[in-house]
């Protein structure tokens, strides 16, 4: 397949992820959208790795995955803590700097 297939697919995924971050008020969905954006980036990494026959792109995907795992772990813990304090997870309810 031509590179443009992967690139456009990746761009579309990324854009949809951005939309999810901007429009959804449920933080869980926002996190999922973030994962979507990670995946879009990963797809480009892998595609170029194959295109140039260099393995470093694949390695980067590996690192992105671990970082994303860490981010999700911390983010979901935050969610739980916030829900415990405010009894809601609506992002718009968290517009004050104080608890």
């Amino acid at each position, binding site marked *: *397949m*031509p*590179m443009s*297939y992967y*690139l456009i*697919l990746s*761009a*579309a*995924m990324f*854009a*949809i*992820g*951005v939309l*999810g971050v*901007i*429009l959804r*008020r*449920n933080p*869980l*969905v926002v996190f*999922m*959208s973030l*994962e*979507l954006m990670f*995946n879009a980036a*990963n*797809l480009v990494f*892998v*595609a170029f*790795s*194959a*295109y140039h*026959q260099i*393995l*470093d792109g*694949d*390695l980067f*995907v*590996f*690192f992105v*995955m*671990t*970082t*994303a*795992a*860490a*981010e*999700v*772990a*911390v983010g*979901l*813990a*935050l*969610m*739980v*803590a916030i*829900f415990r304090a405010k009894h809601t*997870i*609506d992002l*718009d309810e968290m517009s004050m700097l104080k608890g």
Partner: protein
Amino acid sequence: MDIGVLLVYGILGLTVIVSAIGLIVSRNALYSALFLVVNFIAVGLLYLALGAPFIAFAQVTVYAGSIMVLFIFVIMLLGAENLPLTEPLRGQRALGILLVLIFLAEIVLYYLLRTTPLQAIPIIPQTFASPAEIGMILFNRYLLPFEVTAFILLAATVGAILLSKHEGPTRPKPGIQKPETPVEG
């Protein structure tokens, strides 16, 4: 390129896009999570097609497996809240969609105007990106980042535990009785 391959790629791409859209439009967070799993598996298949089997399997096991389990666990824990779809921020929806469209258009424009045209992906050798090769690079050239990643994961683990620890300094734990409270009987 024969029609069957095109069909497979077309269906895969469509699956990716549709599942992504489904993710962001479904009201129920659980559905979103399932759409994301579908998306991950489709992208993993694309990784296989790009000759990266190790990454593909990591994608399916780590992402679609463990991370999504974590998501679903949290959704179950907090109760899958169905938040109202109304937009309280004025102009947020319109502006967001507009900006995203511009963003997409600009990416395409950039690709068309600013880059040298790319060829098709060459034939990938069988040994490329095999787990052995990845291991060689990972533990040689990328040893330090690997260790740093380990630290990040450790820090995330500790942070997650700390954040979700129940007790706070202001609120006493409701379940535990205070010793001075006389027990009836």
